[in-house]
């Protein structure tokens, strides 16, 4: 499958390949971290009875804030490691947008630089915009 077959120019195709590679790397990294945390979690708690998830309690701050997740990961806490993988997973699409922005900028596609910047701003707003209720 080469670029000519697609009727697309080389620039577009390059971005597509890079985006594909980033998504794959991000997902593989995230799932490896999650798998490691999950195995450790099962070794420590696997034979315990399933906790009641019937009522919503919310997670404590060790597993909901950036700082909390990082510090519990560094303490080798299995749940913290899983949450760290979750963070990598959530960050993957955001990085994908950033990569697309770079690609469109290199192509000098002003319209799509603007469009991509808008999407990136919305993502950053939801991440750090204090939407926590």
């Amino acid at each position: 499958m080469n670029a000519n077959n697609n009727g697309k120019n080389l620039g577009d195709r390059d971005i597509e390949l890079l985006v594909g590679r980033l998504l794959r790397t991000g997902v593989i990294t995230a799932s490896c971290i999650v798998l490691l945390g999950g195995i450790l979690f099962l070794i420590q708690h696997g034979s315990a009875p399933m906790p009641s998830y019937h009522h919503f309690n919310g997670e404590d701050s060790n597993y909901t804030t950036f700082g909390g997740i990082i510090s519990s990961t560094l303490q080798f806490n299995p749940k913290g490691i899983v949450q760290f993988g979750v963070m990598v997973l959530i960050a993957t699409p955001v990085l994908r947008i950033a990569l697309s922005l770079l690609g469109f900028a290199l192509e000098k596609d002003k319209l799509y630089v603007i469009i991509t910047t808008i999407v990136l701003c919305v993502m950053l707003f939801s991440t750090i915009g204090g939407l926590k209720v």
Partner: protein
Amino acid sequence: MTILTFTIILLVGAYLAGLVGSLTGLGGGVVVIPLLTLVFHVDIRYAIGAALLASIANSSGAASAYVKEGITNIRLGMFLEIATTVGAVIGALLAVYTPTNTIAILFGCILLFSAAMTLRKKNQLALTEGSKTSEFLKLNGSYPTPAGPVDYKLKNVGAGFSIMTLAGILSGLLGIGSGALKVLAMDSTMHIPFKVSTTTSNFMIGVTAAASAVVYLQRGYMDPAIAFPVVLGVLGGAFTGARLLKKLDPKVLRYIFCAAIVFVAAEMMYNGFQHKF
């Protein structure tokens, strides 16, 4: 039931969810939510957290394969992501105040109607005449088929964009990928060939879900013990689905899509009437 048994069953269920979600462009979340709430009686808020993660994993896993093959229309995805991410943030904010039962029932009705519309229209031809807006936004493209590359053009960009905003709001509100609405916006409204709309929808779901996932993570809706089997299972299913899509023709895909959309609609309405949301 021990945690180990729970994990294994959830892993298998999530694998199937990933497979169906990837083949239809619906996202794995729609199957994960009933599995968790109806089978395991997990609180809907944990289910929503896991479903959002499933949607991101499913989308990114499958999208990496489709993008490589050049089926996905990245510009179209990027343009429509303005609508879906803004919608997702609005939805995540609305989630605090809205009785989601009402929305679930309404959404179910819309989906059933859409499934009927999709079944009625059998032909899936690429447009040769695009609208001025699609020309200006460089949304027209081509995609590879066994018979060589096929060019396609778009129309009704504004209407598609509006449906995408709604898809984003529902995604943020209910924690699902809203892939069904995304495919409908592109397939029925903008007249994009089914394979392109499915893969581009899949591509967009990750970003849409991520926009609201951060909010849900901070609210404590993500439980690590549920997240890890769901993420790994959905990923496995998504990779299998990406391989299968290459061997199936769009007609088969459309039937799977219709069956899936009816399933989603029934699930949404049932849960809405039962006040399970």
